[in-house]
C-alpha cells in the first residue's frame, strides 16, 4: 500500500505512512462509535414497550417521512462517492459540486428529522414522556447529531478545497469524512430496520 501510494502520488513514504495511520485510527474511532450505537440499539429494544401509557411508535412514526429521510441520506452517500471519484481524478470543481450536493441532501435529512422531532414534542410525545421515547430520541437524535457534525465537517472541507486545493492532507481528510459519512448511512439502515419499520408494523 505504501509503495503504491508513493509511486502514484509523489508523496514521501513517511507521509503515506502517516495518512495510513490516520485512516486506521479513524477506523478504530468508528468501531468505538459502532459500540455506542449498538448499545443505544440494545437499550431501545429493551425499552420499546415502556410507553408508560403514552403514544407508541405506530401512532407516532410516519412511513412517508422515514422514506424521505432514508432517500436523502442514501443519495447523499452516493453523491459523496462521486466526490471521491472526482478527487481521484483531481477535478477540483467536481469535488466542490458533489460536496455541495451531499451537503444539501444531508441538510434535507436533518430538516426532515427536526420536523419529525418537533411534531412529536408538540403532540406531548417528547423524550420526557416515557422510557420508550427517551430511547427513541436518544438513538435517532445521536445519529442526527453525528450527521450534523458531518455537515459541519463537509463545510470545513469545502473551505479547505477552495483555499488549499486538492493537496494530500486535504485529500486524506476527505477520505476520512467519507468513512464517517458512509458509516452514518449504515447506522441509518439499522435505525429504519429496528425502529421505524418494526414500529409501524
Amino acid at each position, binding site marked *: 500500500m505504501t509503495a*503504491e501510494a508513493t509511486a502514484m502520488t509523489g508523496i514521501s513514504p513517511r507521509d503515506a505512512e502517516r495518512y495510513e495511520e490516520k485512516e486506521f485510527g479513524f*477506523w478504530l474511532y468508528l468501531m468505538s462509535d459502532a*459500540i455506542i450505537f449498538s448499545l443505544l*440499539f440494545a437499550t431501545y429494544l429493551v425499552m420499546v414497550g415502556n410507553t408508560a401509557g403514552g403514544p407508541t411508535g405506530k401512532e407516532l412514526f410516519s412511513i412517508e417521512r422515514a422514506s424521505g429521510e432514508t432517500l436523502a441520506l442514501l443519495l447523499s452517500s*452516493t453523491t459523496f*462517492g462521486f466526490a471521491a471519484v472526482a478527487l*481521484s481524478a*483531481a477535478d477540483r470543481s467536481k469535488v466542490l459540486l458533489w460536496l455541495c450536493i451531499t451537503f444539501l441532501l444531508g441538510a434535507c435529512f436533518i430538516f426532515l428529522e427536526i420536523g419529525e422531532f418537533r411534531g412529536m414534542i408538540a403532540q406531548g410525545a417528547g423524550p420526557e414522556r416515557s422510557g420508550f421515547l427517551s430511547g427513541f430520541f436518544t438513538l435517532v437524535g445521536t445519529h442526527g447529531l453525528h450527521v450534523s457534525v458531518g455537515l459541519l465537517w463537509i463545510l470545513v472541507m469545502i473551505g479547505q478545497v477552495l483555499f488549499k486545493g486538492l493537496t494530500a492532507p486535504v*485529500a486524506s481528510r476527505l477520505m476520512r469524512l467519507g468513512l464517517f459519512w458512509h458509516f452514518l448511512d449504515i447506522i441509518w439502515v439499522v435505525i429504519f430496520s429496528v425502529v421505524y419499520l418494526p414500529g409501524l408494523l
Partner: protein
Amino acid sequence: MDVSSGIPVERTMRPYIIGIVAALILTAIPFGLVATGALPRSTTLGIIVVFAVIQILVHLRFFLHIDLETTPRENLVALAFAAVLIFLMVGGSLWIMFDLYHRMMV
C-alpha cells in the same frame, strides 16, 4: 495529481451506481411490505432483518470498498473484533434484560 491515504480511492462511479441501486431495492421492499402489510408480521420482520444485513454488506463493499484483498488486514481484524463484541454485548444485554423482565417484571 492523485492521492492515497491508504484506502483505495475508487476511480470510477461504477461501485457507487451498483451500490445505490442495490440499496434502493433492499430498502424499497421492506418499506413496501410495511406500508402495504402484504405479508404476515413475523415474515415481514424476518425480511427486514435479512435485507438490513445484506444492505450493510452492500454499503461495506460498494461504498466503503472493503474487501478481503485490498483492505489492510488490521482494518478487517478491527471490524471482525467489533462485530464479535457487538454480538457479545448486545446479545448478552438482551439476554440479561429479558431474563430480568421475566423474573422480576423490571
